[in-house]
């Protein structure tokens, strides 16, 4: 069995590997949850890359309906054509627009289908897709045809937990919660993204990063993607590792902190804590 073991740009932990392989083997959707910025969306891209398959991404918004993934009937275009007296108006199939699911079903080779941020949509959305994802087929009412998947695509669904998903839907999925990576995993992730980065810079940066995550009361804790952005900035600006280590007065806020702390309140909070910390040390 050709399994997923991570790629040269993605570190997959053992539990993630097992979950992905189970989803592939049993042809069931894989539901991925986790803190923002821990690589949920990237996962689908990496699975596609690792298995050499095409990725079809369907990004969900609050207005997305399940029907949009299947097909849409462009009635307005047909209406306009009828008023202009065009010939193609007689065939309704000309006005059926294929959705992402349809695209994935009729692909030559089974693709990876990403349904991104499913919790953004209406509460009924997952329920409306139950049958389609289970049986991998649906019916087009306008043309009276049934679309059946040639091969079952690998379906990856991500959720940010803004809404609870219905039980019936959950029962059909494999579930994986991406835990925030521990230091060891994080070092591996950094190494995969920026090979050849000075070792002591990484170590100091991770020190600062995990310390920052420990600060109580932060609105948005920095996550993996923010750490990677920050490291990139540090490299571009050529900040030496010593600058991160500097614990003397006035330098308690890490350089280029804008990449890590995204809200004004968090920066204020951090500054205040740093100030108190300094006073304690001084006194």
């Amino acid at each position: 069995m050709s399994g997923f073991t991570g790629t040269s740009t993605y570190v997959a932990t053992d539990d993630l590997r097992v979950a992905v392989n189970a989803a592939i083997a049993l042809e069931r959707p894989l539901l991925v949850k986790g803190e923002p910025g821990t690589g949920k969306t990237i996962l689908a891209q990496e699975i596609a890359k690792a298995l050499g398959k095409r990725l079809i991404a369907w990004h969900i918004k609050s207005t997305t309906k399940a029907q949009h993934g299947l097909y849409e009937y462009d009635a307005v275009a047909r209406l306009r054509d009828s008023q202009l007296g065009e010939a193609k108006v007689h065939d309704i199939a000309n006005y059926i627009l294929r959705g992402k699911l349809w695209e994935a079903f009729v692909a030559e080779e089974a693709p990876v289908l990403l349904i991104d941020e499913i919790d953004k949509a209406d509460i009924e959305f997952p329920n409306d897709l139950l049958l389609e994802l289970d049986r991998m087929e649906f019916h087009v009412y306008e043309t009276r045809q049934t679309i059946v998947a040639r091969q079952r695509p690998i379906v990856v669904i991500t959720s940010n937990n803004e809404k609870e998903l219905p039980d019936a839907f959950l029962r059909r999925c494999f579930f994986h919660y991406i835990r925030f990576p521990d230091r060891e995993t994080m070092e591996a992730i950094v190494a995969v993204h920026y090979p050849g980065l000075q070792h002591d810079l990484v170590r100091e940066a991770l020190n600062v990063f995990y310390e920052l995550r420990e600060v109580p009361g932060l609105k948005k804790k920095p996550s993996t993607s923010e750490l990677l952005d920050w490291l990139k900035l540090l490299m571009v600006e050529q900040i030496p590792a010593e600058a991160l280590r500097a614990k003397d007065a006035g330098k308690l806020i890490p350089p280029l902190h804008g990449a890590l702390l995204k809200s004004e309140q968090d920066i204020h909070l951090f500054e205040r804590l740093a100030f108190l910390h300094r006073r304690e040390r001084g006194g």
Partner: protein
Amino acid sequence: MFVDFFLELREARVPVSLREYLTLMAAMRAGVAAYSVDDFYYLARATLVKDERNLDKFDRVFGHCFKGLETPLEEGHGIPEEWLRKLAEKHLSEEEKRQIAALGGWEKLMETLRRRLAEQKRRHQGGSKWIGTAGTSPFGAWGYNPEGVRIGQEGNRNNRAVKVWDKREFRNLDDQVEIGTRNIKIALRRLRQFAREGAASQLDLDGTIHATAKNAGWLELKLVPERHNAVKVLLLLDIGGSMEGHVRACAELFSAARAEFKHLETFYFHNCPYEALWRDAERRHVERTATMEVLHTYDAGYKLILVGDASMSPYELVQPGGSVEHWNAEPGQVWLARLLATYPKSAWLNPVPEHYWGATASIGMVRRLMEGRMFPLTLDGLDRAMRQLAR
């Protein structure tokens, strides 16, 4: 063995169904997790757990079923982690190790532990009887006793197996724990009610097509009002006195509610709502709003959420003049009943943990007045309250 595991999961209230069990069997047959206990654990977790809140329960059941590990102590008997944090390690010679006598069978050990837990009140370290770190007592961590029970040890000092499920890394995702703002927002989101209200400003495509088709092709435009969250919430918060200890939880709830609801009205009260409420808690002796006025201003479409510990003298509820602050002509329960009559959709959130409710008479009385619609201020309780309100 697997069936027992499945049944035990259900008993621990992890929502698993036959379908998931069969999926697990199918995955095993497909060879997804061949010959490795860790892989089997990951596979079972991906198959049977569908919500991160249940991961901790799953880990406990898995540990119990497949390793004969310790069952968790009953609720309320948890050991403060601080006791067991590694402070020092004790190194024993081989001879000393031999000298440590085993206490007897497993049952006896657990029995003794339970008794010991009841006796011990303070943190303890070293020594050979009490629970703590680096000692030779059978209970605790980072010590040595051949027949010991390990409690909350982070590392693996004596090289006895600590399995992944034993680490219980998902502990803080259990839905009984205290809540943070973002989690509260998600729970409050249950209340969302989308409705179309106000001026028709959006093109109704389907309606237009229908109308046009009916008109035999002559275009007829249809408009509808925009869709938005129309839920209206009246939030009454208890402040001062016994609520001091719950300020943080209440502040979190308040800030989450403010971000979540467009129509949110907030008032404060002390212990029990009487004839006046306050908009601003700091100026409560200067500016008051008559409760009657509140009842008349906000219609029955508002959902009423009361937040308070409901811990007060029973006289405050039943006796005119029972209030601790002022002379009230009518007792608290009359005003509470009035509020409930005006707002049929209502709930009381109580920051006091649910299993202490029985200990305070007034909590029971308020609960009766609320017809049982009192919920603890935890994520789970909030969820139940929102379901109740959304009904």
